[in-house]
């Protein structure tokens, strides 16, 4: 009886929000995955020393239709100064992500995360979500959602981080 009651409490507790989301100031959790395009391995750690814009997106996410082309533009602008976009596609069917990329082509690496393992590691709260990581590997800004006003602010933050010397 008591065990059952305990089980009941445990199961309802599952509804409470967990507090494991990656926040500003924390080191960006390391992960590795496979590129969506060809399955080649890629690691976040390989980009250490660069400013990284880590973005979680999906083909079904409306604002991502704006954010991906914007990311491509910003990457072209800041890449020479040591900046890279690292995108994680969370589509359950990778084909959906690939179809989206044919429509909105990008030149930065896109990982496939069909099972949501990387998204769970960061405990992503919204789609899209992005994490601005400095040259030392610390999360400096967490951004949820995306609209045109965000774009200008994010660009300013990127410019600021790129200007920082390690």
């Amino acid at each position, binding site marked *: *009886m008591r065990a*059952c*009651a305990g*089980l*009941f409490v445990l*199961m*309802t*507790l*599952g*509804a409470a929000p967990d507090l494991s989301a990656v926040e500003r100031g924390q080191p960006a959790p390391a992960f590795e995955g496979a590129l969506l395009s060809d399955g080649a391995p890629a690691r976040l750690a390989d980009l250490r020393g660069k400013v990284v814009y880590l973005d*979680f997106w*999906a*083909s*079904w*996410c409306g604002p991502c239709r704006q954010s991906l082309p914007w990311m491509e533009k910003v990457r072209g602008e800041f890449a020479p100064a040591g900046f890279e976009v690292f995108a994680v596609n*969370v*589509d*359950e069917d990778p084909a*959906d992500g690939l179809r989206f990329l044919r429509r909105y082509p990008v030149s930065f690496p896109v990982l496939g*995360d069909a099972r*949501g393992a990387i*998204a*769970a590691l960061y*405990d*992503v*709260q*919204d*789609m899209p*979500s992005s994490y601005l990581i400095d040259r030392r590997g610390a999360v400096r800004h967490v951004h949820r959602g995306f609209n045109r006003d965000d774009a200008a602010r994010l660009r300013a933050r990127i410019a600021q981080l790129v200007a920082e010397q390690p």
Partner: protein
Amino acid sequence: MIARVLLLLAALLAAGCGAAPKAWERGALAAPEMAFEPDPLLSGYRDHVHLSKEQASGGGSAGGGGCGCAN
């Protein structure tokens, strides 16, 4: 015994409520056919037509019109 079974059933039921889909698991929910109003413009137009035709009965709402009739 019955109480135990009932409690277990309740626990199993509650288990379904425990895990809300995470932000990255909402692909199926975001599909157009899952939308409550797939086409807000069209349904707004239909509401308008319905309202203008069924004015006496209160249009699209359940409150009823001013005439006192039930439907």
